[in-house]
């Protein structure tokens, strides 16, 4: 069975602080994909990143970075120098190579205080 766990339900940081959102996944498949989505107050989930299970290289995109570690089944997301516009709920998700099905975590609500 597949499962995604986001243990942090709510995080508050002061603007310009760095923050890391944790994501732990479970699957027995060797080929899978991991995603992060952002859900601002408007409600629409916005795709941030996709990684496949064979690519453990960390990725940086502006103030965002992702740390994928298969050894610990984790795919953590760091926002550097947080801004108020980063306030949203962030979801980690897992999909397998077959079935076109996505498994979402319960989300982490991030509040950036000005």
């Amino acid at each position, binding site marked *: 069975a597949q499962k995604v766990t986001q243990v942090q339900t709510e995080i508050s940081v002061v603007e310009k602080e760095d923050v890391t959102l944790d994501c732990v996944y479970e699957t027995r498949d060797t080929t899978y994909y991991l*995603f992060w989505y952002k859900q601002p107050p408007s409600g629409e989930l916005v795709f941030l990143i996709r990684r496949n299970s064979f690519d453990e290289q960390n990725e940086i995109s502006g103030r965002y970075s992702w740390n994928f570690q298969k050894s610990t089944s984790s795919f953590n997301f760091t926002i550097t120098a947080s801004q108020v516009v980063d306030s949203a709920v962030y979801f980690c998700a897992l999909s397998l190579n077959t079935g076109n099905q996505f498994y979402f975590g319960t989300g982490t609500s991030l509040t950036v205080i000005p």
Partner: protein
Amino acid sequence: EAGVVQSPRYKIIEKKQPVAFWCNPISGHNTLYWYLQNLGQGPELLIRYENEEAVDDSQLPKDRFSAERLKGVDSTLKIQPAELGDSAVYLCASSIGQGTATGELFFGEGSRLTVL
């Protein structure tokens, strides 16, 4: 390019009334999903279409929920009769992938249902 369009954005009904939600996916996206999102939770799959075929509806409460995707484009999700516990956000998403889950999902803004 237009994104996934959903309507209505908000709907308030009394219990036992019917309700329908409409979704227009991104042009060319073969796969369409309906998700249920309760407050403080992640999206949970209700039904997935590959073109016009419902390939995964195992989580759809078929006694009161129904869905269709005519001609493999737009889709409608219906609840009849609605219950108090159906109050949630109903999200539609589409992806270009077919058969494999390599493509990211593109979501609409959701339809927020309140059942009184």
